[in-house]
């Protein structure tokens, strides 16, 4: 128990200086409820107070961007009258405590962000990071998180089409559960979370409000609060602050909200996520420049005796806030009744207050009864937008140079490359077999490949032959060695993944998972990451249209490796035939497309490679980021694959990005998908076998001369001819395809079923 003398504001996670700021805003002392509202809204999670000054440096504009960062989701114009909304978030801390519900409610939350924009959620992807599986707790986390995503996503009816699965000791105490959702809408249905029209009603849709998730965004659940306003006993306050999800409620909520939007019955709509009602009401009011009265007594509760601060900050799931005109209330009520979705008028839009200095300020007023006692009254924008911004100290880690000098690229090869290669093979099918990846009949390329590819179609959308592709990528191994270049290479890798399904990259969303921002090294990593991301996005012509920052991923004073995750959205103009997969055909020529050598100090860098990590080597140099070498290669591959998608005649039978594990793993994965091997003819060194840097593809063609002619100045290296049952690379690798298949398909299950 905390000391009983701890001042209330500190128990709520506010610093003394933040209390001073609040006094300045209000020109008086805040009461306990008002402090609680600031406590959640000014939390790191809601306010981005440590990262916002850095995030401003990201490029966010492009002609096709309809909605950039700051809204519930980013939106681009995908053509044919269709817009695509996309968003990524983290649900790291809840998943560490309660993996099933943490992951499940992560899915629920991201779906609401997307359908809030008027978009029907069409796909979910889940980048997951755990500790090594030689530990029973990690296996419990993996199984819980995967079944939570499966249980919620499958039930709510949105296909899960991919993600990432990373195991590294740095996540042992801090698993990362990120979730991306994309949806589509007719362009004209685009709506924003804005309250407007004095006299309009604020309607709460969906679940009742309970005590689950209180203080999920801050440190509310601690001593010091009991007593002051008779709010809660300590026992109540200690309840788990992980929310509980109900996908069936969410499914009805999706259908009801999309029908409300289709019928033009709402003025604005906003989901309830972190910080619950206070966040939704203050954000919509602030965006609209209006005030809002909220009647806490009108909010349907799940349990009796809840105090106003609990009601206002509860993170109960499956709720939405709609702003409607009073004339539409009966129609809204009837529509919601049909979908068996609860709808309650809980507030109304009020005119801003004009201050003595002439400024007009929209006030959020919490009342007990519509015209009842005012329990709290604060400027809505002060909660939503005016948290203090911090430029926290940054420092390059002192040991970074030593770590980078400890470079495995310079090692003499040891051990057996055959064994190393087998150890690097892992098929995530155990995970994605548990996900419904096909709902809505759009999935052309599902989980387990370079990127997911779907038809751009769905209920209520105009007809289109376009497709959209999504890839989520991260490389904490690179980013630990050089966060600036590491994220740039990661983005290039992601663009390359999209190219493998014929898609041109159009937009980026990011989820920045870092350690404790009060550690100057972590702030340095974050700042470098933002700069590297900006450089890569500028060079590749990509706008960042949304993001999420997850800080304090530390345990026992140890921060996770910097783990910026990007989600890239690409478009295929004509998708009428599936792109080539990994399955090459007997007799085809196997070609390495792109420069063989990496730009930078090392020809074949092994720093930050999966091979080096396997060998326990975490130091070294990574490749430089050189867009002038990468872009022409990617453009060529996009053109080749898009041509297949458009059902034009093509000699290309297979394509795969050279990614994690390097050339050896890419060739193995291709061999495994047809049970046909290849004898690699050029001499390949040990370092080239396992080196990782973006801009290289393995492709197979039935007509190498024609392929070469189209490639123009893009460098091609003829690797060999498909045939036989073995993968042979010089004197280094000689494996039967059966060995590769068996090891790859069984690796994850074997690790999960290991005793211990």
């Amino acid at each position, binding site marked *: 128990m905390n000391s009983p003398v701890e001042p209330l504001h500190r128990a709520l996670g506010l610093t003394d200086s933040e209390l001073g700021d609040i006094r300045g805003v209000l020109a008086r002392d805040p009461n306990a409820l008002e402090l609680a509202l600031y406590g959640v809204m000014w939390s790191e999670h809601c306010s981005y107070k440590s990262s916002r000054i850095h995030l401003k440096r990201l490029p966010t504009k492009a002609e096709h961007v309809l909605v950039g960062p700051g809204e519930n989701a980013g939106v681009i114009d995908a053509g044919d009258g269709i817009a695509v909304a996309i968003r990524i978030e983290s649900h790291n801390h809840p998943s560490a405590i309660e993996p099933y519900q943490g992951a499940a409610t992560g899915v629920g939350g991201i779906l609401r962000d997307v359908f809030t924009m008027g978009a029907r959620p069409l796909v979910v992807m889940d980048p997951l990071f755990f500790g090594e599986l030689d530990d029973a707790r990690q296996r419990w986390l993996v199984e819980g998180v995967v079944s939570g995503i499966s249980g919620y996503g499958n039930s709510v*009816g949105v296909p899960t089409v991919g993600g990432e699965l990373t195991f590294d000791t740095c996540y042992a105490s801090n698993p990362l559960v990120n979730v991306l959702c994309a949806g589509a809408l007719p362009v004209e249905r685009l709506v924003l979370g804005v309250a407007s029209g004095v006299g309009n009603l604020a309607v709460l849709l969906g679940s009742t409000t309970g005590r689950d998730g209180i203080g999920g965004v801050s440190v509310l659940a601690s001593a010091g609060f009991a007593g002051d306003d008779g709010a809660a006993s300590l026992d109540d306050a200690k309840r788990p602050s992980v929310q509980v999800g109900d*996908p069936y409620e969410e499914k009805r909520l999706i259908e009801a909200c999309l029908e409300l939007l289709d019928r033009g019955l709402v003025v604005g709509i906003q989901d309830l996520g972190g910080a619950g009602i206070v966040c939704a009401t203050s954000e919509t009011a602030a965006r609209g420049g209006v005030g809002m009265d909220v009647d806490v007594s009108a909010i349907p509760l799940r349990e009796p005796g809840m105090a106003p601060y609990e009601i206002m900050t509860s993170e109960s799931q499956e709720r939405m806030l709609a702003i409607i005109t009073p004339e539409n209330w009966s129609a809204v009520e009837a529509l919601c009744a049909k979908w068996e979705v609860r709808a309650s008028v809980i507030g109304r839009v009020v005119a801003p207050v004009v201050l003595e200095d002439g400024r007009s300020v929209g006030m959020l007023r919490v009342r007990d009864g519509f015209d009842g006692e005012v329990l709290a009254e604060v400027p809505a924008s002060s909660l939503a937008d005016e948290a203090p911004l911090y430029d926290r100290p940054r420092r390059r880690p002192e040991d970074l140079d030593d770590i980078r000098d400890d470079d495995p690229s310079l090692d003499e090869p040891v051990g057996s490359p055959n064994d190393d290669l087998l150890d690097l093979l892992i098929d995530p099918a155990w995970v994605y077999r548990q996900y*419904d*990846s096909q709902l809505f*009949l759009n*999935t052309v390329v599902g989980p387990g490949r370079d990127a997911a590819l779907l038809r751009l179609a769905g209920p209520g959308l105009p007809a289109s032959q376009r497709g959209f592709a999504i890839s989520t990528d991260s490389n904490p191994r690179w980013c630990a060695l050089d966060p600036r270049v590491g994220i740039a290479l990661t983005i290039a890798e992601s663009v390359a993944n999209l190219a493998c399904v014929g898609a041109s990259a159009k937009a980026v969303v990011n989820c920045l998972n870092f350690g404790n921002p009060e550690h100057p090294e972590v702030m340095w990593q974050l700042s470098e990451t933002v700069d590297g991301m900006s450089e890569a996005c500028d060079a590749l012509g990509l706008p960042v249209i949304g993001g999420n920052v997850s800080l304090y991923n530390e345990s026992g004073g140890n921060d996770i490796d910097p783990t910026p995750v990007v989600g890239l959205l690409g478009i295929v103009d004509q998708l009428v035939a599936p792109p080539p997969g990994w399955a090459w055909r007997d007799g085809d020529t196997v070609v390495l497309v792109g420069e063989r050598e990496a730009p930078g100090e090392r020809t074949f860098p092994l720093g930050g490679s999966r091979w080096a990590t396997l060998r326990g080597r975490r130091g070294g140099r990574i490749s430089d980021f050189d867009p002038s070498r990468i872009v022409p290669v990617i453009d060529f591959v996009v053109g080749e694959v898009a041509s297949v998608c458009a059902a034009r005649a093509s000699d290309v039978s297979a394509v795969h990005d050279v990614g994690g594990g390097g050339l050896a793993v890419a060739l193995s994965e291709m061999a495994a998908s047809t049970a046909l091997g290849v004898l690699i003819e050029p001499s390949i060194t040990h370092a080239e076998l396992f080196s990782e840097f973006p801009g290289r593809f393995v492709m197979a063609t039935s007509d190498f001369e024609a392929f070469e002619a189209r490639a123009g100045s893009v460098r091609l290296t003829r690797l060999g001819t498909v045939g036989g049952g073995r993968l042979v690379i010089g004197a280094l690798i000689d494996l039967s395809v059966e060995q590769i298949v068996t090891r790859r398909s069984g690796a994850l299950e074997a690790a999960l079923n290991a005793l211990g």
Partner: protein
Amino acid sequence: MKRFGVVIFPGSNCEYDAALGVTQLGAEAEFVWHSDTDLSRFDGIILPGGFAHGDYLRPGALARFSPVMKAVAHFALEGGPVLGICNGFQVLTEAGLLAGALQKNRGLTFLSHDTTLIVASTRSVLTSEATIGQELVVPINHFSGAYTCDDATYESLVANEQVILRYRDNPNGSRGDVAGICNETRNVVGLMPHPERAMSTLLGSADGLVLMSSFVSAGIAVG
């Protein structure tokens, strides 16, 4: 033009896909809310996949009490074709319109992947246009898909050719590799795999076409 009713329970989620499955074949589809009680305007009824009423208690256990199910039973009794896909199959067994029950998969995990089905009988509204022994690649997507029934029921299903589809490589522990069955009058069919997900080579398989086309034609090749 033939018109098919696609029943939506709270928690259904394959309703749009089921509707596409018949509209792609030139028929009309109309959503029917689970509280509706009149199905007389339809030429066929589909109970789509999903998790009706949250699958609380067990899949289909609550859905059988939805008002629409009385109408479905009446429609079936009149000889109207009724197709239950995945959760719809579970609902039909719970409602007593099809024999047996679906229990949790052998491996106790959700399974979503392609399976190869073997047509075991063409005497049903779902398989009339297929041929015996025909292999069809159709995906499954379920947690509770292991078909089970008592010995007498199983023997009678086999003897009456009511087992219409079997798995080539049993993924979930279903008794006798059963993937789909029909009732004695062959107008009510249920299967765990999703034929509506296998109607386009762009999406991986068009093998479900023969099944959906049989159903839309509803050409009952009875005895």
